[in-house]
């Protein structure tokens, strides 16, 4: 839609699985400003989420604060604005409520076609309910494959496998098994088959599927051993998500009638904002966005101008804990909790959180459990995302997180922590950034909204961002290398403050330290890494100067190592986690 210069007030809503947020932007003194926000639980019923009711409740909070009326007597949106107290000029909405697309992936090799197909699926709100192929299920019989597909009742089966001109028979066998499974299901309940494998088999696959199922053919997600091409498959899966899931949510039709632009999945809007942030920074570095909510975890990353989206549908701090316990065991969560906790206690906590998803922790133990769950969910999502970033300029070390200038943190579980150091520690433990990064907190949940507003009125998004919609959480300096012994110096650093003060710091391997650098203050860092240690300024042993900003959690030096080592003994691990919490002020 062409930008409408007459647009003044804009109401933006984000319908989440657990909470619905509403934001009002308006022109004040010639510039767009964030005026007010409201939040309310998204009502859930046996039939799914009631997003319209959630919007009315959230917008009612804005009405309460501003006195503005948004809806008329028949609950229709008043648009365009009648007066400054009645109606809005534009409305935009993002949606993450609703069920994710259920996907079954078939492929041949875990690290190749299966991994690429999983990343393609993670480009939209999806949940991979079964993987047929790879090391664990290479020996499945046809009957077992059919049983799995029929049993999981997916929305889509992604048929991957075989580089172009490569393997044929196992790929065709997968297509046959998927077709047979479809033939044994009611026509109305059959999944769509998305063929994203060996491109030379397209004709045979089309013949095999015949009219037993809807077949969509896209580019091979792994055309060669080295190349991954998931864009085509992602687009198709995003379309399927919109058609089969998002547009089916009761109330979305009403939103479409109110909005001049298409309703956008929250993650997509979030990704747009991360892309915008990348254009503002150093093109050699990347920008990372982490959005963790009650029902989903999203990682949006931009490297070399390209946006990489990784979404774990159904994995958030309210729903998905049980799935983590089942798939990875309790240790993936318990290892981040500084107190001894039994598996059944964790299970009970996950169930409680699922039953009352909007509830918050009141005690330290429950807070740690929730933050540990967030950490495990982000780590799991990073595992899927990271291989897709290989080969980008920012990825200096193949198995580590690329160098990111900025890491934006969004989502209630991390933006509403009692102490800012807690949010920072979750991100450090889960993302494990390297070099110098600024952690930014989206305290008011603006990120998806601003990404969406950019579609209606780009200027409004830019001005609202400039007006301080986000808050600096911390600047992190994380040297990487493995040549030093524990306790050896890995970095010498001078911090020159704006008031002329200079702090000299010697960082030893294993340290996690917080130096004073409050919000709205800047400092110049002079970094001298030890031989073999890299702070992202040009390689191991290369130092330099960086101007950095302060944050709520100060200036954090994380020399614990990458990948982050955790003691193998549970008691020792708890002690270590407790120490880190103490060190960071959590």
């Amino acid at each position, binding site marked *: 839609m062409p930008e409408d210069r007459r647009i003044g007030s804009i109401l933006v809503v984000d319908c989440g699985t657990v909470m619905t947020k509403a934001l009002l932007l308006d022109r004040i003194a010639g510039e767009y400003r964030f005026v007010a926000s409201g939040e*309310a639980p998204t009502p859930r019923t046996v039939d799914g989420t009631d997003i319209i009711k959630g919007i009315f*409740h959230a917008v009612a909070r804005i009405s309460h604060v501003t006195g503005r009326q948004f809806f008329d007597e028949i609950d229709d949106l008043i648009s365009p604005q009648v007066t400054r107290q009645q109606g809005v000029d534009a409305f935009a909405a993002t949606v993450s409520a609703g069920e994710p697309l259920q996907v079954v992936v078939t492929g041949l090799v875990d690290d190749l076609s299966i991994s690429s197909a999983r990343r393609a699926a993670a480009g939209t709100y999806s949940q991979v309910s079964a993987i047929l192929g790879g090391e664990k299920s290479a020996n499945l*019989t046809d*009957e077992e494959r059919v049983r799995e597909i029929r049993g999981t009742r997916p929305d889509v089966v992604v048929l991957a496998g075989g580089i172009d001109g490569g393997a044929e028979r196992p790929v065709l066998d997968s297509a046959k098994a998927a077709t047979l499974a479809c033939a044994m299901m009611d026509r109305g309940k059959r999944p769509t088959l998305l063929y994203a494998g060996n491109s030379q088999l397209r004709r045979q696959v089309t013949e095999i599927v015949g009219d037993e199922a809807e077949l969509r053919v896209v580019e091979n997600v792994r055309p060669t051993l080295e190349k991954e091409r998931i864009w085509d498959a992602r687009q198709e899966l995003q379309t399927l998500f919109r058609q089969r899931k998002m547009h089916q949510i009761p109330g979305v039709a009403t939103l479409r009638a109110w909005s001049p632009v298409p309703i956008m999945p929250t993650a997509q809007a979030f990704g747009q904002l991360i892309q915008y942030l990348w254009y503002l920074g150093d093109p050699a570095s990347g920008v990372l966005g982490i959005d963790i909510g009650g029902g989903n975890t999203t990682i949006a990353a931009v490297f070399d101008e390209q946006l990489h989206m990784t979404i774990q549908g159904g994995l958030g701090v309210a729903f998905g804990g049980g799935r983590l316990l089942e798939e990875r065991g309790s240790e993936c969560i318990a290892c981040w909790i500084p107190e001894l906790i039994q598996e*059944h206690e964790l299970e009970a906590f996950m169930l*409680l959180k699922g*039953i*009352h998803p*909007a509830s918050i922790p*009141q005690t330290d133990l429950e807070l740690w459990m929730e933050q540990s769950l967030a950490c495990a969910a982000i780590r799991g999502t990073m595992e899927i995302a990271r291989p897709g970033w290989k080969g980008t300029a920012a990825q200096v070390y193949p198995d580590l997180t690329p160098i990111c200038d900025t890491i934006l943190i969004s989502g209630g579980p991390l933006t509403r922590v009692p102490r800012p150091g807690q949010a920072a520690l979750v991100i450090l433990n889960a993302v494990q950034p390297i070099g110098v990064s600024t952690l930014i907190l989206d305290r008011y949940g603006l990120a998806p909204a601003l990404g969406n507003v950019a579609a209606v009125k780009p200027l409004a998004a830019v001005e609202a961002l400039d007006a301080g919609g986000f808050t600096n959480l911390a600047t992190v300096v994380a040297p990487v290398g493995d040549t030093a012994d524990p306790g050896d110096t890995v970095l010498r650093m001078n911090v020159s403050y704006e008031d002329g003060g200079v702090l000299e710091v010697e960082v030893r391997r294993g340290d996690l330290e917080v130096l004073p650098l409050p919000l709205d203050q800047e400092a110049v860092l002079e970094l001298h890494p030890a031989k073999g240690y890299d702070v992202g300024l040009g390689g191991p042993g290369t130092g330099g100067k960086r101007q950095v900003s302060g944050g709520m959690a100060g200036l954090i030096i994380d020399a614990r190592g990458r990948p982050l080592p955790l003691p193998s003994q549970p008691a020792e691990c708890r002690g270590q986690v407790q120490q880190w919490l103490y060190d960071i002020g959590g």
Partner: protein
Amino acid sequence: MYYASATKISSFTTIRRDRVLPEPGEVLVDPGDRVESTQVVARASIPGDFRILAVGRMLGILASEVQHSLQTELGSTVHRGDVIAKREGLLGRSVSCPIDGVVTATGGGRVLIEAKPLPFELRAHISGHVLAVENNQMITLETAGALVQGFWGAGEESVGPLKFLTKRADEPLEARTIDASCHGRIIVAGMILDEEPLSRAEDIDAQGIVTGGLSPELLSAAKQLPFPLIVTDGFGDFPMMKGVFTLLKDHEEEEASISGQTETGHRARRPEIIIPLPNREPPVYQTQHAGEFEPGLRVRAVRAPYAGLVGTILDIPQFAQRMESGARVRCAEIDVGQDKPVVIPLVNLDVLR
């Protein structure tokens, strides 16, 4: 702030429930009909088992030769043990059918045998009358009676008379109290803290268990039970809420319909106990609407350290308050019958309606 969750606890209300077939089928009742809880109200056929037999591999022949080896035709009914393919000669072999069914597909050296669809019968589950029928798949039933929504549940549905095995709402269930008289009954107890009563109830063929609290260590065992189990108050040594205990006690030995089905994802389903009371004039049906928190509402805390505490909202201060965890949130002051009110975040309150 609108409240996130509400638990319905009513001694007499009008209840509507949808009964849905897993596949479209035949509905056996009409709007206005009276139904009993155990009455079959609809039936359907659901897909049965199947087998894919790799005949070519089993007989050691080429896929193209399989067609000649078949002893049966596409669409034929076959029985377990029937020879469906045979290789003649000195090294002759045969493939027997592992299930009763129909040969529905052949190709690629394989044969697909699908068992006959399984009959599925949908019972009313609650006594009442039929309000509406939709698409040969869904029936809406209405009844008047007592309704208690639970906190968490396991298992499916069952119907049976309520039998109390603890005298008090805060008394743990002991296995020795479960005897033959519990056969076919729904056991009600203050709390369950060890596994023995669960095993005993299973041995005696109870129809279900309703408990105030359940030790979290018993979650796995609870999920394995052949009957529904409903936890009304929480995981741990929670007593059953007094009002619920008294309400259920008033209907001891009366028939209750219980459902342990709990959904915690994008859809929300709570376990429930329904006691139909058909001989009283039903009140006007009301849908549950989330409303605003206000003084006077009865609420229950859902998170530690006050989980399970029931009281009445006295006041909702305008400004956020700091919690033990350090979080600052809007709270309510709750009268729990002690000298001082307790302060609990609004989002951690479940409204009792």
